């Protein structure tokens, strides 16, 4: 199938190095300590963060650092056909773990010993790149909750179809079965905290695809920073100072 036309347009009209439209909103769940909705095109994810709070299960409590837990779910209505998604299937367990590890790497857990941080992410609408969207939403929610972090961890995916590196694959491109590189990245520290890939790629091509994904992460980070800044301004304004 032709994913990039000879005119250089992808199926949805983007060029190979363009991302989908981003949108983020902070404070979607008022009960949570921090929350955010994050959209990448038609992929829409909500994240809620509770904590730091007392550890529920004493056996899991750690005396030198905080316990980070993460739960990833997909809403029944998130895809076109309405199928009941069993909780705790392999895929969501894996993604939960991926998100937890990525977030744990940037949260300063040693500042909050004997406590627990819960991150809940739910996919409201899925159109490819849910993993990246969840990480971005979780970052925002953590920031909203005021949990100390080393940096804003952001994520973006990139693929390689029709011998062209493509940024931010949507569902159609994702299901082509080609290579799909998801990168989690700390922009300030210039460090990669997550790197996953489906399928395979020659090493030299892989490097360019990964570099593209990193560029995507940087763009996401800029946007998140703007959103957070705007949010802070709003808070400041509401306090009336």
């Amino acid at each position: 199938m032709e994913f990039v036309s000879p005119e250089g347009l992808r199926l949805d009209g983007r060029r190979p190095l363009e991302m989908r439209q981003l949108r983020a909103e902070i404070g979607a769940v008022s009960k949570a300590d921090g929350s955010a909705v994050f959209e990448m095109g038609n992929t829409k994810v909500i994240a809620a963060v509770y904590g730091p709070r007392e550890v529920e299960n004493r056996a899991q409590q750690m005396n030198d650092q905080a316990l980070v837990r993460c739960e990833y779910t997909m809403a029944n209505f998130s895809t076109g056909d309405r199928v009941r998604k069993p909780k705790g299937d392999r895929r969501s367990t894996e993604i939960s773990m991926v998100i937890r590890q990525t977030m744990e790497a940037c949260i300063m857990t040693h500042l909050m010993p004997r406590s627990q941080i819960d991150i809940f992410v739910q996919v409201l609408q899925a159109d490819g790149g849910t993993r990246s969207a969840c990480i971005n939403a979780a970052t925002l929610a953590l920031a909203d909750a005021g949990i100390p972090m080393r940096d804003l961890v952001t994520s973006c995916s990139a693929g390689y179809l029709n011998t062209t590196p493509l940024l931010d694959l949507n569902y159609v491109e994702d299901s082509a079965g080609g290579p799909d590189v998801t990168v989690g990245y700390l922009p300030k520290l210039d460090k990669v905290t997550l790197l996953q890939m489906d399928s395979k790629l020659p090493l030299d091509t892989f490097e360019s695809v990964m570099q593209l994904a990193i560029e995507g992460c940087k763009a996401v980070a800029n946007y998140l920073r703007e959103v957070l800044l705007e949010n802070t301004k709003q808070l400041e304004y509401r306090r009336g100072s």
Partner: protein
Amino acid sequence: MLQSKSFVKKTKGGKVVKVVREHYLRDDIYCGASICKTCDSSVARLSSDASTIIIVDTNVVLNQIDLLENSAIDEVVVLSVVLEEVKNKNLSVYNRLRTLCSNSQRKFFVFSNEHHKETYVKAMVNESPNDRNDRAIRVATQWYQKHLGSAVRVLMITNDRENKRKANEEGISAETVESYVKSLGQPALLDLLARPASEDVVMDSVEDLRPSKRKVIYSEHKPMSEITTGLHRGIYHQGKLRVNRYNPFEAYVGSESIGDEIVIHGRTNMNRAFDGDVVAVELFPQDQWHAEKSRIADEEDEEDESVHLVQSSADDAPRSTNVQGSSADTTPSRPSGCVVGVIKRNWHSYCGSLEPMPMPAGAGGIAHALFVSKDRRIPKIRIQTRQLGNLLDKRIVVAVDSWDRLSRYPSGHYVQTIGEIGDRETETEVVLIENDINSRPFSSQVLACLPPLPWSVSAEHLSDPNREDLRHLQVFSVDPPGCRDIDDALHCTLLPNGNFAVGVHIADVTNFVHPGTPLDDEASQRGTSVYLVERRIDMLPKPLTEDICSLRSDVERLAFSVIWEITPQADIISSRFTKSVIKSCAAMSYVEAQARMDDSRLVDPLTTDLRNMNVLAKIMRQRRIDRGALTLASAEVKFQIDTETHDPLDIGMYQIREANQMVEEFMLAANVSVAEKVLKHFPFCSMLRRHPTPTREMLEPLLRTAAAVGLDLDVSSSKALADSLDRAVGNDPYFNKLIRILATRCMSQAVYFCSGDLSPPEYLHYGLAAPLYTHFTSPIRRYADVVIHRLLAASIGISKLPAIFQDRPQLTSIADNLNYRHRNAQMAGRASVELHTLIYFRKRPTDTEARIVKIRSNGFIVFVPKYGIEGPVYLTARGDNGSGEWLVDEQHQQVKKADSSICYNVLQMVRIHMEVVEPQPNRPKLELTLTE
């Protein structure tokens, strides 16, 4: 700007789901006109002095692609909405359009109107997709006119009246194709126009045509919805229609739903379906199944069978025809039916000539003519031409446009002229076109990939650690006489321990053809060199084929070598693969090599090597035969060609010598060794060659013939078949060969495949009785060997595996293309031999002996061993369908006179007379008649 597109779609499971897709609109899509000041003109394709810019609609592209391909039409804007629609409707037209758009000589520009901010249109409520697309085209045209201003006229071309009317209302200039072409003032272009097939234009003529006045010849095709439900309910059966090569009024539809082939008799039942169309068939009630004989006296002038070459495998052999004649009721007949609808058309363009006809009164005006395709499976095609006088004695190419139920023949339009009928070059060109062989010279980009000439082995090659210096070995090559593209050479030395070191050295083509280069793309497209009688169409440019890669004598050449240690009992102890530098000491022909071996006075080292290898080869060959390899026979003929006129001087069977078998044996061994090595390293992406085991049905014609002459063949395995073929010795020396030829014809062809696509038991090569096989030994003339060279180089670690091998679908598509090209090359080779046979016999009527190979109701098919041709001999006059005078005995495969005075058995020898006759002017054919 973001738009979202949403539509409902039915999934495979039958569920209806709503799909929502993002659709981005952009402001950085440029108009492609050089005169435009606002747009980026670096990608512009439309020239600056264009006075008119054409925008075509979908139906114009679909129907008039031949016109668009003509260089008179230029400055065309192709909208992405049109491209998309064309892609969905006809992929081959889409590919042709894409080629046009990427051709730098032509001024075709693709405008992505669907993603342009100002030309995107959203479907309105209750607007059909067709109407929306038409509106999108109009909006884009309007935008162009506004964007470019009054300096340029933007013209929309459409044959849709409604669309044209709306365009005129909106102030867009619009014209039909006909009026536009007329305005260009080139009458020859009008021939290229497809006859209006779209209902819009025919509409008004239909009304006054009153169907009662014209006879309805074909029944109506069922609407698609009815066909789909019919297929679901099992009333109709879907399959690809294949027309009998020998009788164009009989066709078969291989249907999966009833697991058998449905026979379709006559054009009326075929109901306007062409060969290769996917059709829906309705079965007749069982009692009508054998009501029609396979030979039917159709209303049309029935053409008789022509003389042709013998087939080399089942794939191109005629379908075993249905039981014929009087014995029909004793054997179960096959289901027959009629076509009720065409699901997918397989129309393309065809080569042929116009049926001779008198010039119409008003010369220069429009004449209607009938076109007869060279491919007999294609019905005559009605065309309209303004240059009838020019075309009558020419070979032309015609494309089919439509076939309505009121006309007996489909209508089409002229595409191009090839040359004079009967001219050898024209006819060769026809052969090439018919077999889709690219004989154009290599492009400059391809030639730019060649190393500079004169080329020689440099110090760099010698110092390469991956390349072994084997120049000290006494390497030689044995090939057919006059061979210029020598791709294999051999050596054989006696080792101190009494074993032999035998090497097969293959031209190192991959050293020059690198993956991803234009040269490589071209080679993979061509797939194989094509050998015609008087000409060779190379896969690689001549400098590579005949010089740089060719392992000629006394020059240093690069090679890829397989070196074995072989015991005197011909057991391979070890094998080794390496790139090398060799220097051949002798390039012999088979005859020379054979003469050396036979001449007992010669004891020079080269002759000794030859003899040693011959001894080994004989043992290996025997061992292979013991394993069950089939020695199949094919009737290959060889021409002697006049060097001046290129006319054939003599014709005879190709003689196979021991030297041929010796070389063949080592090539087989090399191929097997390489296949094992490569598959071990790359189990999922190797390119191998397999030969499927023939099914019992495929061997049925052989068994029937064998039974008729009292021969019992065991076909349970290749070994059993090989043994029983060996036992099949009659009192006649040619009997065994004949049986082998018949057996060969029942087999399907060997094919290339990607090892990941099949499971290991399916890798079997039946004919060679080898569990693994591939092609390694002729990289100059076969692309598969180039692929294998790259795999082998990667498996011994001297180069990286090209990225393409990680893409299995792409590898599979390469294998499919190679199979297609390989088969076409063979067909073209045969067609070329047939052509030369005809030229040869034109001046030399001959009497010779022939064997009966098949019995027909009104004669039999004979095989002429001396010339390797096959053709029909008629016992009754044409038109007289064997009215009881001759009876066919299906069981004993014989045809005898009603009073049993004369009887012809299958495999019997008869004497025949061969002569070229011209029943119609410009249509010579070879006729065989009995002389006894």
